[in-house]
């Protein structure tokens, strides 16, 4: 593999993705900022003030890391799925497919684009959160590594969704019927210790629970799960999803006749 060629190719895709995110900022940056502001006002301020403390933190403080992680996850996923499917739909994905770039470069470029948008929106939501509550980062390394790994997981998942998608409906099915329920049930708004034992065990099968809790641990220092488990699960997902992306690209699923 020509490393210099693929490095330039990777940078090109990343720059293209950043330009795309910034060009359509009204679609990519503003909506999550508005949604999260509403979450903070309604769940944090209005309802949260009646809920009382959760795991020793006031409710607004407790949900802030979860909301930040939720915005990172949905935007990382959404960026890759819409960008890559859009390229497939308009057929300009062929620009990359005829080029000598490796399949790994094409995947990594789009995943990096998704991660960058996720982090950008996450940073914006963090700033919004600071208007409503005080946040101190207890474990910066855990915080940053977990947000980076989680956004990578969902960017890879978005890539797989885009490869299988044949029409625009197909790129909204997974976010609507899988991603959103898993995120809401992934401990964003509550501690699983509030659930009956059976549902606590069921919740442990939800990978988003580990991401949200590890991220919350990074910021607040509290978590429902063991942090090591979170890293193992997230790294496992990265490996499995990246391998799946490579397999699909090598087979040309949905992109080569």
């Amino acid at each position, binding site marked *: 593999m020509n490393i210099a060629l693929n490095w330039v190719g990777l940078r090109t895709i990343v*720059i293209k993705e950043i330009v795309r995110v910034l060009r359509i900022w009204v679609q990519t940056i503003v909506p999550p900022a508005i949604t999260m502001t509403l979450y903070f006002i309604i769940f944090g301020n209005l309802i949260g003030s009646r809920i009382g403390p959760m795991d020793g933190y006031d409710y607004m403080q407790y949900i802030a890391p979860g909301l930040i992680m939720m915005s990172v996850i949905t935007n990382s996923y959404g960026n890759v799925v819409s960008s890559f499917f859009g390229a497939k739909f308009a057929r300009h994905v*062929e620009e990359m497919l*005829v080029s000598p770039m*490796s399949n790994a470069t094409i995947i990594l470029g789009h995943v990096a684009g998704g991660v960058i948008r996720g982090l950008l929106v996450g940073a914006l939501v963090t700033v919004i959160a600071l208007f409503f509550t005080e946040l101190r980062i207890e474990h910066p390394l855990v915080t940053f590594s977990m947000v980076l790994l989680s956004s990578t997981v969902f960017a890879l998942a978005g890539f797989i969704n885009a490869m299988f998608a044949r029409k625009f409906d197909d790129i909204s099915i997974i976010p609507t019927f899988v991603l959103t329920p898993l995120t809401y049930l992934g401990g964003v708004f509550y501690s699983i210790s509030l659930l009956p034992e059976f549902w606590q065990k069921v919740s442990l099968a939800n990978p988003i629970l580990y991401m949200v809790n590890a991220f919350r641990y990074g910021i607040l220092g509290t978590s429902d799960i063991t942090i090591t488990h979170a890293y193992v699960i997230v790294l496992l997902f990265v490996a499995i999803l990246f391998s799946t992306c490579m397999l699909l690209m090598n087979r040309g699923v949905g992109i080569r006749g």
Partner: protein
Amino acid sequence: MHALSIRDLRKTYPNGVEALKGIDFTVDAGDFYALLGPNGAGKTTAIGIICSLTQKSSGSVEIFGHSIDRELEAAKSCLGLVPQEVNLNLFDTVLNIVVNQAGYYGIPRRLAHERAEKYLTALRLWDKRSEPARNLSGGMKRRLMIARALIHEPKLLILDEPTAGVDIEIRRSMWEFMREINRAGTTIILTTHYLEEAESLCRHVAIIDEGTIIENASMSSVLRKLQREVFVLSLRDAVSEAPQLDGFEVTRIDECELEVAIDAGKDLNRLFAALSAQGISVISLRNKANRLEEMFMGLVEGKQATRPGAAA
């Protein structure tokens, strides 16, 4: 050296359609090669396989000696493609589209900008560099696809109907541009439905029909095989009916135009002498259709006529 070498290339789609039934052909480096055939003949499938956009069922493809099975990266580096259908990111600017394409081939951004200026200027698009591609006319989009395909200066350029839907003035300027890049050393494979275009530009021609190559030779030898040509004669004075000329098949188109079918090798002077003898004066003469078109129709229709059950 062969720019392209294809051996026993086959493609059967999952729905059972056999698009290529084992085609073989080679294109010499520096050639201007026409790949012709009716719609659905298998041209675009063949091009898709050469460019790795379509997976072959079997056979081999080598681009400048690099096998697409074993040295895909090297093979792709030699290749530029102008596809049949517009496949531009319509929301991106003209300049970004070509500069990004250069990046996919490992060309650093500064050099990419220099080349973008060179090719966009040559294709009369430099003034539009900041426009999103969706604002361009159909002809401009086609020229942008050519600039995009040339940005990494490929040794082999495949043009899949590059002038479809382009007005005659732009088409002729594109022909001149293609001739220039071919003279500069780029091997070109052209598919087109404008056979005049292929006859005017190409030195070799392969005709593909129903997944098989039915003709593959130099343009001049293909045209020499033409058994019969049809001419349209414009007359000085009106005629009420087609004149009877011994040895020529004459049809009256209208009062001032005749159509004459002449077998290959027949002396045209005899035709004019016979017309003069009947007091008919010819003021101009032209081929009814372009010669390659006649050859093409003869081959494709001839193949259809020999197909079982075609007589009915």
